[in-house]
């Protein structure tokens, strides 16, 4: 009877390699926490951008400039925080949860436009921007907390 089983040394080496690989993977997933202002900055900048471009004042150049600056800042903040620690992590959680996180601000934006019924375009733009900004702030803070749990 011939056997070709791995030796105990092979098995030990395999286990050590598996542990090292798992440790490395977890290290990549564990990065510094996002700054405390991240969620608020995202929400506020989002609200400014959409509050300006969706309102009846969206033809006013100074406001468009403000919206443009806010948009650049929104993208910049996202890139800065998303790549902190030199690692861009994968989205966390099941697919349904990730879709929900993206959908909540969109739904809030849509619901905000109900304010246009009594208050017109201005009311709708402000309400939708504020609700969507607040929702984005909340889901960002929640997602960052989930990522560290």
């Amino acid at each position, binding site marked *: *009877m*011939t*056997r*070709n*089983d*791995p*030796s*105990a040394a*092979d*098995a030990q080496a*395999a*286990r050590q*390699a*598996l542990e*090292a*690989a*798992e*440790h*490395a*993977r*977890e*290290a*990549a*997933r564990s990065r510094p926490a996002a700054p405390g202002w991240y969620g608020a900055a995202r929400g506020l900048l989002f609200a400014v951008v959409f509050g300006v471009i969706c309102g009846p004042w969206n033809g006013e150049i100074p406001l468009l400039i403000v919206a443009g600056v806010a948009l650049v800042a929104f993208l910049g903040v996202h890139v800065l925080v998303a*790549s902190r*620690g*030199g*690692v*861009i*992590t*994968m989205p966390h959680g099941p697919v349904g949860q990730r879709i929900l996180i993206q959908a909540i601000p969109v739904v809030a934006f849509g619901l905000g436009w109900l304010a246009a019924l009594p208050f017109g375009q201005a009311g709708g733009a402000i309400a939708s921007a504020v609700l969507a900004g607040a929702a984005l702030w909340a889901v960002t803070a929640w997602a960052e907390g989930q990522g560290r749990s």
Partner: protein
Amino acid sequence: MTEEHVPPPALDEVIQHPTRLTIMAFLSGCLEAEFGAVRDYAQVSDASVSRIVSALQDADYVKVRKGYVGKRPRTWLALTAEGRRALTGHLDSLQAIAESARHAAATDPGDGPNN
């Protein structure tokens, strides 16, 4: 009575080296990682990481993206789909080796005094 033993699955020779496996595993935990972050975790020199990344690139396991943070150039590393498959296969092979040895130890009657 003969027993048929299925040999352990083959390990991936490209990934087998401990530092290469460490880097591949680190990259598997993220979408992209900056060169410095990978180097710092692996605790090897820039030149070593460059050599390893080149080898992994040649095997189509890793892709490299050059970018800038402000005016400072940055290099970003990521596993390709092929790299993720290769890593998964390699880890499965390691797991099979570890479990096969455990199974063999559990079922081995051992060498008695008459052998």
